[in-house]
């Protein structure tokens, strides 16, 4: 790791990168950005923006469960709960006649309320409030490793899931008629999103994580004309905004997650007039 820092010092001799915590934050952003850029494209295509928002909120309950069970490793509790919650929402969505947004809203509200009730007991919520807005400057080397592993595993599964997901997003019965197991594909994708959200939420924050997933893909849709360009532009927009947002937050002394999302929003609105009519 020290040698990586040395290389960064030589290649990127900027004042803001002088501190180790900023180097770690930059590395975290370089891992989170492509992860969310990739997943966001299919979240948008499959109309899952609201779903991923609910998942972000469920992180609070994940932490709460960890606290109740006395687990020191909050990440394990968040991952476990996030995946279970994602599978449960998808299952209920498929097996209920109620509209998807109502179901997701019910799950989302439940997880926020449950998380807040447990974490705020005895006025202790201040201790956990950082998870709401995230703090990328507190990333450790161990966290970077977790992000790296998540990115590699996600990218691997993504390669296998992409075509089935794309066809399912266009028309599910048609996809099934071609031997695609659309339900399994959808479950696999929701689990991927759950893992990505939980692994990154402490750095980006409950309130902003969904924007990081949806905005780069939404902006990319404004300019892309085919699947390859869509994917490339989403990852590129995500990378540029993540790095630029980090630098901006350093100089403006603001939340990095918020600065990143704000830049993504700017890109979205600037590219909106370019949208194919």
């Amino acid at each position, binding site marked *: 790791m020290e040698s990586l820092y040395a290389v960064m010092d030589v290649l990127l001799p900027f004042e803001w990168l002088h501190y180790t915590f900023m180097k770690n934050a930059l590395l975290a952003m370089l891992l989170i950005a492509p992860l969310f850029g990739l997943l966001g494209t299919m979240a948008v295509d499959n109309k899952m923006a609201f779903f991923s928002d609910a998942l972000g909120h469920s992180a609070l309950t994940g932490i709460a469960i960890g606290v109740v069970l006395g687990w020191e490793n909050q990440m394990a509790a968040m991952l476990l709960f996030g995946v279970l919650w994602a599978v449960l929402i998808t299952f209920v969505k498929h097996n209920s006649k109620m509209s998807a947004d109502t179901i997701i809203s019910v799950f989302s509200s439940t997880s926020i309320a449950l998380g807040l009730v447990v974490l705020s007991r005895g006025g202790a919520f201040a201790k956990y409030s950082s998870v709401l807005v995230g703090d990328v400057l507190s990333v450790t080397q161990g966290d970077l490793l977790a992000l790296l592993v998540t990115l590699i595993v996600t990218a691997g599964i993504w390669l296998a899931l992409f075509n089935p997901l794309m066809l399912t997003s266009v*028309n599910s019965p048609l996809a099934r008629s071609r031997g695609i197991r659309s339900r399994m594909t959808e479950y696999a994708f929701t689990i991927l999103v759950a893992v990505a959200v939980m692994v990154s939420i402490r750095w980006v924050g409950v309130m902003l994580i969904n924007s990081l997933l949806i905005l780069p893909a939404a902006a990319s*849709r404004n300019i892309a004309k085919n699947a390859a360009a869509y994917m490339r532009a989403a990852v590129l927009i995500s990378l540029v905004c993540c790095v630029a947002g980090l630098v901006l937050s350093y100089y403006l002394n603001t939340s990095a997650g918020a600065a990143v999302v704000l830049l993504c929003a700017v890109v979205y609105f600037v590219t909106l007039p370019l949208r194919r009519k």
Partner: protein
Amino acid sequence: MMEKIKPLRKSQYAIDDRMQREKPHGHCPHPLSGPDADCKLCRIEVDKLTVSFGAQMPLKDVSLHIHCGELTALIGTNGAGKTTLLRALLGQLEYKGTIRHLTSDGRPAAELRTGYVPQQLEFDRSTPVTVMDFMAGALSRRPVFLGVSRKTRERVIAALTRTHCEALAGRALGALSGGELQRVLLALALTPQPDLLILDEPVSGVDQNGLETFYQTVDELKHKNHMAILLVSHDLGVVERYADRVVLMQGTVVKQGSPEVVFDSPEFEQVFYAKGGRA
């Protein structure tokens, strides 16, 4: 895997046409039918097929034969169970009863390969997916965003050429007209060559020109490729013109036979006129 059926010679088409006219009901119309027939799959036999969702039973005791080289049309009012039957044939629903795939001599055929053209697709028209992306995504495992290999590209163009829409490969899926989109979906349903082609209200919302082009292509394929085609349509004019056999449904099969026989039957009258007009 279905063996690729060789194209017939011109003289064989003539025989085929004659046999179409003279065929006794229930026989494979293929000119070479018999134990050594080239016609690998000659009929799909649906026997006492029943589908139930809890207390509801949208399909009860449906029995019918779908022959290769013929276009069989399913007609009936809304809720008659036509789409449910298609879903059972596509293996997307649990059912009681049997669906058997038989060769001309009555032996079980290889696994049935179905091609499916859905109703007018409801999808996000702004999706950044081209016709090439869409087709390549269905025909190849390589993730489309990594680019389409030359082999897959050639396969896609060949498929689109069959339905006369190769010029659409570079267009965005959402920018196609209704008729163009249905021809792309037909091209996909035909690749790889299916034993049974299922068309579910394939041209609803398509203009007259697109409709004619679509059915002419289907008719051409029926003769050239000798495949079984099952069509669900509310357009009885189209059914009258293009179907070889018609199956009238109302939760079960109430009448089946040639278009003339079904359209002149009291059952037809009962289903379509008792409710105050054609569906």
